[in-house]
């Protein structure tokens, strides 16, 4: 299993703060993104390939090619706006 976490606009529009997902066929973050897009609706809209998405694996900034393993915490969020 891996843990998915969502923040800011993603958390609000998807109505999910965090969830556990099977990790068997997830080699990298892109695999997770394509699985989530298949849910359709707001998932496919917010995570579409032309959207700006930031991602972190185990609380470090990551990219779609970052490898995954069981137990990882993956976060998806819109571009950050602090400062």
């Amino acid at each position: 299993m891996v843990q998915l976490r969502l923040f800011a606009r993603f958390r609000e529009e998807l109505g999910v703060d965090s969830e556990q997902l099977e990790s068997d066929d997830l080699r990298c973050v892109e695999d997770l993104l394509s699985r989530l897009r298949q849910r359709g609706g707001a998932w496919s809209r917010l995570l579409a390939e032309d959207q700006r998405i930031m991602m972190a694996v185990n609380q470090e900034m990551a990219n779609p090619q970052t490898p995954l393993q069981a137990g990882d915490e993956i976060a998806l969020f819109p571009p950050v706006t602090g400062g």
Partner: protein
Amino acid sequence: MYTIRVDSEPFDPNHEVDLLRGEDPAIGAVVSFIGLMRDLNEGDRVDNMFLEHYPGMTENALEQIVKLAFERWQLQGCRVVHRVGELKPTDPIVLVAVASAHRKEAFQACEFIIDYLKTQAPFWKKEATENGERWVDARDSDDEAIRQWSQAGSDH
């Protein structure tokens, strides 16, 4: 020597700068940036703001940015304080204060840290305006600032 704090309570930037400059008599220059909450954005009055963050990752991301600055410039100290939660107009949002022996390092490192914080630290602003609540959009100019730092290389 650096201090990083994510704070849900208002903070006094002057007090933070005093603490920094008192840390080491080798400090000859302190440069600070204070980001403040404005009451106007995109033409709308903003009554208050909520700053969301990613606890745990936020502190790690800020520490990595500060460490990059210490690798790049000769620095004597640094304090970064960032508010989260509910903010009102005029509240300080962020303080980046950098100390060095001479001014150039402190000026450059301060700008570097705030530029990286803007694009790499997991904070998100949500504004309550006269026309309702909205998430603040990231600015392309912030990404451009990072590109310039990475092209500049080690230029101190």
